């Protein structure tokens, strides 16, 4: 702000400052500080300041204080032309916070989060759009999902913000509008577990608990069990029932740690689906 300051009452304050900087660079052993009859000179006029360096310091202090306190706004800038409007509601802040949890703890749910945003008629909260663009800048399939879920804001941001533009280049331009598949990518799940997905969630819950209690399912199966829970029927109530059941496992059971992790995954997924359910007043994006 100092650079754009137009000091009050002393039109030459900027010029005085430049002179002070020059003297300070050279040192008062080589050049004396300026003298004159300006307000600043009167302010620091003090016979006790015999040493040139002391006089320079006093002037620097006075001019700095005056320039900072007397700063005025710079010339108006030309604002960016806003992006085309997107009439979809921004997803709730709880969903935004959920995305952060998903990315940090359960990235297996990330595709479903994006798909749920789109299917629910939401748009990504603008504050998340840069992070999502950067996160998926090298993954064209996911970048396409972000492009749809963020709406016109995504391409506008890449256009006006140098940093995003440098990172993404022309990648967004290579995405064909309307070509984005909403089907979730498949995850590696053994056939024996894959068959569970044909059943209702209550049955899956029973099978899972029985397997954990018997020791047939253990920590070594964690990855495939995570994949299973991430791809179970997207039924919020059923997932919450699964959370309850897993949470009731005997604390002394060797599988309790795995059960707790799966319960957190199921709870995260249930909340995510709940938060991103269909909007009540969805207007298609332009």
């Amino acid at each position, binding site marked *: 702000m100092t*650079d754009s300051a137009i000091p009050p009452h002393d039109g030459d304050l900027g010029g005085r400052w430049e002179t002070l900087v020059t003297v300070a*660079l050279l040192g008062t052993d080589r050049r004396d500080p300026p003298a004159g009859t300006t307000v600043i000179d009167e302010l620091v006029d003090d016979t006790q300041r015999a040493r040139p*360096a002391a006089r320079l*310091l006093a002037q620097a202090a006075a001019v*700095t204080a005056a320039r900072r306190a007397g700063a005025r706004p710079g010339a108006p*800038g030309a604002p960016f032309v806003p992006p085309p409007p997107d009439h979809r509601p921004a997803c709730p802040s709880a969903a935004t916070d959920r995305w952060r949890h998903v990315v940090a703890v359960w990235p297996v749910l990330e595709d479903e989060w994006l798909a749920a945003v789109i299917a629910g008629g939401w748009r990504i909260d603008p504050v998340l759009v840069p992070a999502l663009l950067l996160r998926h800048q090298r993954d064209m399939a996911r970048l396409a999902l972000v492009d749809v879920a963020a709406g016109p*804001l995504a391409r506008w*941001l890449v256009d006006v913000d140098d940093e995003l533009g440098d990172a993404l280049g022309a990648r967004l331009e290579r995405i064909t509008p309307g070509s984005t598949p909403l089907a979730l990518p498949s995850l590696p799940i053994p056939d024996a577990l894959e068959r569970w997905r044909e059943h209702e969630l209550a049955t899956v819950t029973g099978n899972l608990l029985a397997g954990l209690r018997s020791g047939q399912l253990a920590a070594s199966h964690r990855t495939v069990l995570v994949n299973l829970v991430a791809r179970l029927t997207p039924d919020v109530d059923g997932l919450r029932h699964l959370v309850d059941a897993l949470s009731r496992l005997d604390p002394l059971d060797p599988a309790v740690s795995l059960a707790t992790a799966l319960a957190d995954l199921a709870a995260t997924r249930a909340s995510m689906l709940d938060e991103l359910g269909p909007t009540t007043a969805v207007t298609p994006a332009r």
Partner: protein
Amino acid sequence: MGRSDDSPGRPGDDPLPWSEEQVESLAPSASMMSAARQLATPTRWRSTGADERGVWGTVQGSGREPYETVVDHIDVVTRCTCPSRRLPCKHALALLLLFARGQIATGAPSRRTRTWLDRRQADAQPSVDDAPTGDQGSGEGSDDATGDPNDASPPDLPPRDEWDRARNERVESMSGALIELDRWLEDRLRTGLADPSLADYATWDQLAARLVDGRAGSLANRVRRLAGRVGIDADWQPQMLEELGVLHLLAQAGQRLRELPGPLADAVATTIGWQVRTADVLAGVPETDHWFVAGRSDAREDRLEVRRYWLYGTESQRWALILSFAAYQQSLEHTFEVGDTVHVDLHRYPGGALRALVGRRHDGADDLPGAGNEEAPGPRPVFGSVADAVAGVGALLASQPWLDRVPMLLRATVAQDRTRRMLTDSDGSVALNVPPTAGRGVGPWTSLIAVSGGAPVDIAAEWTPEGVIPLAVHLAHRSHDLGRRADASFVV
């Protein structure tokens, strides 16, 4: 500094109490009196007693050792081991209030107190006819370190006893350090900012160490931060000259504390590094308001993370700053959520400082983080134009030119030209200090563009000498905290 002739308690009499009004007339300020009233509870005091000349007692402050307070209630001179520079201090006033209420029994003082009171009596005797009468004891003369009205030039007088000696030594130590600071500043400008010695950290570190020794710790931190700016960019030398000028201003003001008006002296003293105990701040008069949590920022300063919450009083329209500090693996304050409005008491540091401490909360659990951010935002301030915001910053800087961060609220749009990123409206702009992130995540500039979508938005920002830093965007139903966050590997 004596009492009116019609007051009770002349030498030889029983120690008759004063009136509360007489005590109040001694108080340097209403806030001091308010603080004293809170301390004027018999249960907070130990070893109290009074005789025909003095009243004394000890009270536990925030330090390990209790403060020892004595008041010569005839000549109304006070002694207290507390660090307050304002005399009478709140402990002396509180003791006098207890005395006035008859809540201090007659007793015999300790030998040290007796010695001091006897010396007081001996000192007062020759000039008793000249002693001012009435309420003059509460005037400017009470600001000196010894509290004696005849001590027109306190630094020239030797300390009267060990209590004063500690305080005077501290003042002298600070003054000595400030004189050395000024000499050092002169040396830098004598040899010039192009002198290679500026790039040597030892040049700065020795000065910082001297300032720490001289109890000017805040200035030492400032000097260390300045050392880190040498050569940091093409424009470092003008910025260095500005900061050297501000240091000179503080060094000069710090050597003239007794000549400055009380609040200004307090502000200068605390800026230099005069320590104020938390309990003393909390004993001050609170500012009760619905405080809008406008913004937050974390900054690494030396080996600490410093968190700043900027609060704006929706009724008082005054700013306050809540600071918290965390060393490695410690946690920072999480009390506030940006965008909330909290109904609390804030207690400011001396001198009308921006910095304050949180006191009593008036709406209980509703103030917990996250409460009401979307559901019940509470009162919000008016976000003015760029010109209004710049004028507000200027007003604060005019009163305290050494401030290096000043908050601002404005309604503006983001804009950019070839050289500047800025916030603008139709009448003016302010340049932003938002350096590129160089590929390290999403910076505040990008977030600001995304959240605003190119439209005017309500913004909380922080003026710094290097430019304005955006801290938060406040939309109608949601606030976005854009301030820098402490490194998660450093704090917990």
